[in-house]
C-alpha cells in the first residue's frame, strides 16, 4: 500500500507541473495575482512531493517501474534512486524559492503570461530528467527542457537575446542529435537503455567509444564542458535573472547528472578505467576549470562573469566524475548541491541589483553594498563560498574533491583546484570590496547608484537570504542532510544497494 | 558475326530500340515543347512496337477465332495491353498540348529555354 503511493509520487511530481502550467497559461489572461499565486503554489507542492519521497528513498529503496512502452524495449519509465532524489530535491527547492522571487521580478517585465507557464513547465521536465528510468525517457525530457528553456533565454527578445538564443538552439539540437546517436548505439550494443541493468556495455570497443564520445558531446554541451561551452556565456546573461539562476544553478546539472549516469550505468568504473576515458574527462575538466575561471576574470558584465564562473564550476563536477573514486564522488554530488545554492544566490542577487538599478557593469557597482546590504550580504556569502572559504559549503565540496584527487593519486588536480580557487577570489573579491568599501564616485560612475536606492522588495530578498543562509548552513555542519545524501549516493553508485 | 546474326534475327527489337533512343533524345534535348511531345509519342510507339514484337509468332495469325481450329495464333495479350497504352499516350498528348496552348497564351512562347529566361528575369 505504502509503496503504491510512492510509486505514484514520481509521476505526480512530473505531471503536476505540466498540468499546472496549462492551467496557469489559461488563467494568466484573467488575473495576474492568481497566476503568480498558482505558480508559487505549484512549485511548493512539487517540492513537498519530492521531499515526501525522502523516507522511502533514504531507507535504500528504489522506485522503478514502466509507465508505457513506446516501442518494444523502449518506453517511458520512472526510476528514483538516491542520486535522482538528491538532484530532484535540490532542483525543486531552488525552483520554489526562485518562483517566489520571480513574482516581483516579473512584475516589471513584459510577457509574464508566457514566463510563468514556461517556468513551471521547465520544472516538470527537469524533474523528469532526474527521475527518468532509462536513457530514452531521459532524452525526451532532456529535449523538452532544452527546447522549452529557449523561451526563457530569449524572454527579453532583444537582439542579443535572440542571437544568443539562436546559438543556444543550434547547440541544443547538435547536443540532442549526439545524444540520439549515443542512445541508438547503446541500444544496438546492449539491446536496452534502461538504468536498471547496472552495466549496459561491458567492454570497450570502437562503437562503445563512439557512444561514449556522443554522450560526452550531448551531456557535455548542456553541462558547459570546455569546447562546447560557447553558448553558455551568451545565453545565461541575456535571460531574466531568475531564469539565469535556474539555467546556471539547476539546468547545467542535468548534463552532469547525465554524465554520471553514463559513467556508472551505461559503462562502469572498470570499463571506463580500462579504456582510459577518465583521462579524457579529466583533461577536459581541467581545461574547463581553468578557462572558465580565467575568462571570468576579464568580463565586466556582472552576469557574464557569473556565467563564466559557472563554466569553471561545472569543470569541478566533471573532474569529480573523472576521478572515479568514492570520495571524489561524494565531493562531486555535494558540489552539485553547493553550486546550485551558490550560483542561484549570486544570480538572484545580481538580478535584484539590476532590477533596482539597471546596472550590469561591475565598475558601476561601487558602494552598492551600503544601499542594498542584505542583497550584497547574500552575494558576499555566496561568493566566499565560491572561493572556498572554510565554514561555507563550497569549502566542504572542494575539500572532499581534493581528498578524492589525492586518493586517486593525482595531486596535480589539487593544484588545479587551488589555482582556480585563487582565480575565483580574484574575480569575486573586487566586486565585494568595491560594493562595500568603494566610494560612490558620483562624479565618474554610477548615474544609477546616485539616486535613492533601497533594498528590493521582500519577496525578492527572502529567497536570496534563504539561499545564502543554506550555503552557510550546509557548510557549517559536515553532517548535514545534503552531505549525508551525497555520501549515500556515492556509496550507492560504487557499491550498489547498501 | 554472331552479333550481327542475332541482331538480324531480332530486328524488330533493334528497330524499337533505335526509335526509343531517338524519341528519348528528342524529348530530352529539344527545347520546343511540341517537339518534346512528338518525341514522347515516338518513344511510346517504339515501346509498343517492342511489346507487340515480343508476342509475335512468325507465321501466326491474328488471334481471331475462326471456323476450324488448328491455326497458330499470335499472343493476344500484348495487343490488349498496347491498346490501353495507346489511349494513355493520346490522353497524355492531348493534355500536354492543352497545357502548351495555355502556356503560349501566358508567355508568348513555347520554348522551354525562353520560358526559363523569362522566369529568371521575373524573379530578379
Amino acid at each position: 500500500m505504502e509503496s503504491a503511493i510512492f510509486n505514484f509520487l514520481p509521476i505526480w511530481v512530473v505531471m503536476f507541473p505540466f498540468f499546472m502550467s496549462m492551467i496557469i497559461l489559461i488563467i494568466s489572461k484573467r488575473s495576474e495575482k492568481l497566476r503568480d499565486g498558482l505558480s508559487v503554489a505549484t512549485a511548493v507542492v512539487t517540492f513537498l512531493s519530492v521531499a515526501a519521497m525522502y523516507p522511502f528513498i533514504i531507507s535504500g529503496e528504489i522506485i522503478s517501474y514502466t509507465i508505457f512502452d513506446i516501442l518494444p524495449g523502449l518506453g517511458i519509465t520512472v526510476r528514483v534512486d538516491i542520486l535522482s532524489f538528491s538532484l530532484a530535491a535540490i532542483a525543486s527547492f531552488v525552483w520554489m524559492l526562485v518562483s517566489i522571487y520571480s513574482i516581483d521580478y516579473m512584475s516589471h517585465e513584459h510577457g509574464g503570461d508566457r514566463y510563468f507557464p514556461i517556468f513551471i513547465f521547465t520544472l516538470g521536465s527537469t524533474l523528469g530528467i532526474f527521475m527518468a528510468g532509462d536513457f530514452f525517457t531521459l532524452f525526451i525530457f532532456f529535449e523538452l527542457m532544452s527546447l522549452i528553456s529557449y523561451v526563457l533565454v530569449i524572454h527579453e527578445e532583444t537582439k542579443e537575446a535572440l542571437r544568443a538564443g539562436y546559438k543556444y538552439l543550434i547547440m541544443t539540437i547538435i547536443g540532442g542529435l549526439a545524444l540520439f546517436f549515443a542512445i541508438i548505439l547503446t541500444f544496438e550494443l546492449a539491446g536496452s537503455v534502461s538504468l536498471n541493468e547496472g552495466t549496459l556495455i561491458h567492454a570497450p570497443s570502437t562503437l562503445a567509444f563512439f557512444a561514449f564520445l556522443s554522450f560526452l558531446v550531448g551531456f557535455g554541451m548542456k553541462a558547459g564542458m570546455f569546447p562546447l561551452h560557447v553558448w553558455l556565456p551568451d545565453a545565461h546573461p541575456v535571460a531574466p535573472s531568475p531564469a539565469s539562476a535556474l539555467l546556471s544553478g539547476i539546468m547545467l546539472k542535468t548534463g552532469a547528472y547525465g554524465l554520471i549516469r553514463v559513467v556508472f550505468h551505461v559503462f562502469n568504473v572498470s570499463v571506463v578505467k580500462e579504456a582510459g576515458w577518465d583521462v579524457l574527462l579529466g583533461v577536459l575538466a581541467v581545461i574547463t576549470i581553468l578557462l572558465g575561471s580565467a575568462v571570468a576574470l576579464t568580463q565586466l558584465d556582472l552576469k557574464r562573469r557569473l556565467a563564466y564562473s559557472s563554466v569553471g564550476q561545472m569543470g569541478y563536477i566533471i573532474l569529480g566524475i573523472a576521478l572515479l573514486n568514492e570520495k571524489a564522488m561524494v565531493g562531486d554530488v555535494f558540489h552539485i548541491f553547493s553550486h546550485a545554492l551558490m550560483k542561484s544566490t549570486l544570480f538572484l542577487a545580481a538580478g535584484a541589483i539590476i532590477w533596482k538599478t539597471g546596472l550590469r557593469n561591475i565598475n558601476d557597482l561601487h558602494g552598492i553594498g551600503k544601499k542594498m546590504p542584505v542583497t550584497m550580504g547574500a552575494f558576499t556569502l555566496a561568493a566566499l563560498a565560491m572561493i572556498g572559504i572554510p565554514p561555507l559549503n563550497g569549502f566542504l565540496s572542494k575539500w572532499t574533491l581534493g581528498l578524492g584527487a589525492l586518493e586517486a593519486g593525482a595531486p596535480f588536480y589539487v593544484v588545479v583546484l587551488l589555482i582556480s580557487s585563487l582565480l575565483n577570489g580574484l574575480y569575486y573579491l573586487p566586486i565585494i570590496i568595491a560594493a562595500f568599501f568603494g566610494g560612490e564616485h558620483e562624479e565618474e560612475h554610477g548615474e544609477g547608484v546616485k539616486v535613492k536606492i533601497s533594498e528590493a522588495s521582500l519577496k525578492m530578498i527572502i529567497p536570496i537570504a534563504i539561499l545564502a543562509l543554506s550555503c552557510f548552513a550546509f557548510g557549517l555542519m559536515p553532517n548535514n542532510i545534503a552531505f549525508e545524501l551525497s555520501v549515500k549516493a556515492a556509496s550507492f553508485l560504487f557499491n550498489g544497494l547498501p | 558475326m554472331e552479333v550481327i546474326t542475332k541482331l538480324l534475327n531480332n530486328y524488330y527489337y533493334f528497330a524499337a530500340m533505335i526509335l526509343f533512343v531517338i524519341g528519348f533524345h528528342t524529348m530530352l534535348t529539344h527545347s520546343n515543347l511540341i517537339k518534346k511531345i512528338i518525341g514522347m509519342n515516338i518513344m511510346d510507339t517504339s515501346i509498343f512496337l517492342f511489346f507487340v514484337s515480343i508476342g509475335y509468332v512468325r507465321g501466326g495469325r491474328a488471334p481471331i477465332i475462326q471456323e476450324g481450329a488448328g491455326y497458330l495464333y499470335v499472343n493476344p495479350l500484348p495487343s490488349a495491353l498496347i491498346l490501353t497504352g495507346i489511349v494513355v499516350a493520346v490522353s497524355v498528348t492531348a493534355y500536354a498540348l492543352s497545357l502548351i496552348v495555355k502556356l503560349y497564351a501566358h508567355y508568348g512562347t513555347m520554348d522551354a529555354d525562353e520560358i526559363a529566361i523569362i522566369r529568371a528575369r521575373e524573379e530578379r
Partner: protein
Amino acid sequence: MISVLDFLLLSFLIVCAIVVARIRDLISAVIIFAAYSLVMAIVWQMLGAPDIAMTEAALGAGVTTFLFLAAISKTKRAE
C-alpha cells in the same frame, strides 16, 4: 531473316523519326509524324495485331494529328 518489306518499313520509321526530330517547321514535323503513325499501323498489321493497327490509324494518325495541328494553329508554326 529479315524480309524486304519489313526492312523497308522499319527503315522508313527510323528515317521519319529522325526527320521529325531534325525538321524545324512544326507543321511539317506533325505531318511526317502522321506518316510515321500510318507506317506503324502497317507494321502492326504485319505483326498480327490488327486491332492495334486500327486504333493506331484512328488515334495515332488521325486524332493526334488533329490535336497537334489545332495546338500549333493556336501557337506558332516555326520552332
